[in-house]
């Protein structure tokens, strides 16, 4: 298109988008759980064309001296050069680092996993969960897809039973007995793009993100509490507009929760 902004404005005036969605509609969301067999937990999420894969690797380590009863969760978002033209290979760029920090904040704020749960022996042994989130195809709304992939992958994690032999003081890993991780909260992110300082559109594509004047991401849990209101600059919004976003996010949470419940149910052995 020659005049992309004008092209979009024409569509938005009629309350629809060039790909046929309404302003408040999400793209088709697909989730596949257990996509990587070598990881302790994994999930692939597709949001339209945006594809994100998350793998969780669990390792054993000694907890930090100042928090002896806590394990670690290390999230990392990668935007490799294959997922979109503008990303370059090499050390992570600003967007990848900001996304990593956002995911870390969501984990911390929502308390989806309590770090004390990851401790095996106080001050001696704890789990480290490396959550690597890799974007395979970038078509906007990275944060929603990443948070969902992380949640689905963590739901999929099976940790072997670890006991400490009291006589030798060594740890013994029982690979036959595996337990799922306790997920206390289910945070779900919903992103919006702001068009021309006024119009809010849900689940923006990469093109829409480029043309938009700002984005908002809202993360809610199942009780309707806000885990994160992330608005990194951009167009100013009123409190009422933010409230509209939150309302939409709560609906979205219910949908995603149903989806994940169904998926988990389908793979649990009866």
């Amino acid at each position, binding site marked *: 298109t020659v005049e992309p902004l004008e092209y979009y404005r024409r569509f938005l005036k009629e309350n629809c988008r*060039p*790909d*046929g*969605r309404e302003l408040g*509609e*999400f*793209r*088709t*969301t*697909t*989730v*596949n*759980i*257990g*996509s990587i067999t070598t990881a302790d937990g994994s999930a*692939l999420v*597709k949001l*339209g*064309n945006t594809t994100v894969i998350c793998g969780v690797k669990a390792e054993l380590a000694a907890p930090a001296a100042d928090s002896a009863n806590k394990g670690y969760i290390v999230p990392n978002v990668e935007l490799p050069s294959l997922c979109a033209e503008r990303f370059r290979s090499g050390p992570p760029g600003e967007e990848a680092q900001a996304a990593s920090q956002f995911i870390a904040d969501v984990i911390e704020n929502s308390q989806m996993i309590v770090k004390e749960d990851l401790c095996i022996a106080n001050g001696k042994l704890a789990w480290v969960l490396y959550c690597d989130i890799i974007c395979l*195809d970038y078509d906007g709304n990275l944060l929603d897809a990443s948070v969902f992939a992380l949640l689905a992958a963590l739901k999929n994690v099976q940790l072997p039973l670890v006991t400490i032999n009291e006589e030798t003081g060594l740890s013994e890993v029982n690979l036959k007995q595996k337990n799922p991780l306790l997920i206390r909260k289910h945070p779900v992110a919903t992103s919006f793009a702001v068009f021309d300082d006024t119009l809010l559109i849900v*689940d923006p594509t990469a093109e829409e993100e480029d043309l938009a004047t700002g984005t908002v991401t809202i993360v809610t849990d199942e009780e309707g509490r806000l885990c994160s209101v992330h608005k990194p600059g951009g167009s100013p919004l009123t*409190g*009422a507009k933010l*409230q*509209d976003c*939150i*309302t*939409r996010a*709560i*609906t979205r949470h*219910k*949908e*995603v929760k*149903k*989806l994940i419940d*169904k*998926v988990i149910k*389908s*793979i649990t052995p009866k």
Partner: protein
Amino acid sequence: MKATPLSNCERRFLLRAIQEKKRLDGRQCYDYRNIRVSFGAERGCCIVELGRTRVLAQVSCELVSPKPNRPTEGVLFFNLELSPMAAPGLEPGRQSELLVSLNRLLERCLRDSKCIDTESLCVVAGEKVWQIRLDVHLLNHDGNITDAASIAGIVALCHFRRPDVSVQGEEVTVYTPEERDPVPLSIHHMPICVSFAFFHQGTYLLVDPTEREERVMDGFLVIAMNKHHEICTIQSSGVVMLVPDQILRCSKIAAVKVTEITEQIQKALENDQKARKEGGKFGFAESIPFQRITAFKMESAAVDTNDVEEQAKEIIAKADPPAEVFSKPVLLAAGTAQIGEGVENSWGDLEESEKEEAAEEEGESEAAAFECQKVETEDTMRETKNGKYCFSWYHILLYPFL
């Protein structure tokens, strides 16, 4: 950002002025600029202003294991950063030649002069020692970074207090400032750098050159000295041959300057100590010159938050309640599900056909995709759909791996 070059006429003007024993800021050849030291609210933090050159120093400490060849000595770490704020042309994270030489000079001045007693930093020999880290940031570059950094470094080290520790058997306890008063570092002497700039092959000499003067100078000499007139480091650089007399003269000047500066530093340290002891006000907020028109202070202000709850309620009441209707998830296979809330995506249709054809040849499914595409292109929104089809193949290719 690029640095602005110095024009030829500026260069000639500066050099001629120096020949006439005149400096742009009205100083005499051997005059030092004014030094101002201000301390931050926490220990080991200070800002030193040398004329308009401004440097921030911060000391921090950490318990680490010592180097294997020196099991009873603490570790000192110095880091000088040229912040891009200081001058145009300075880039973050780049190890320029200037930065490396400045860092080395700072190390030689503060570590190699043995002014800090490293043995007193040992907690358990061979196991745990204190690492003292000094970070120096250049905030505004107006010449003579060396002197400003060395003054800021030594002042911050003198101002710093490390937490007290006790060792019982193998247990090491670190006390918080509330439990036990933190202890100062043991500093034997205070080495201070004094810089000299040479012009016209060493015929003219200036103390404490500004940035402009540094740009036109031929040679540069740094002498680090303490108040007992012991030389700690001496370094000459640039394209100038110095006669021994010159160096002797410089060291005599340096001795005078160092005595003055040390006195001033000690006075500043004492003043801050007094303010802290008597419970007076300290920190950067107190060092702002509020008599100037560029500075401004607002008294603590109250904000009325009475009607906040009403305002919040109003906004929430006005907003539409969350929609109750939402689409049902579709289970595609064990472990794979979908909610097609958005427009029926082109690849979403394919997913169905793909499942049927999963057993068939992959080439065939591609052909099927082509056919589908032909039918679909009759639709109005061609371009976007085409784009989606490309991705559906990718999805097919990926699917067997899932």
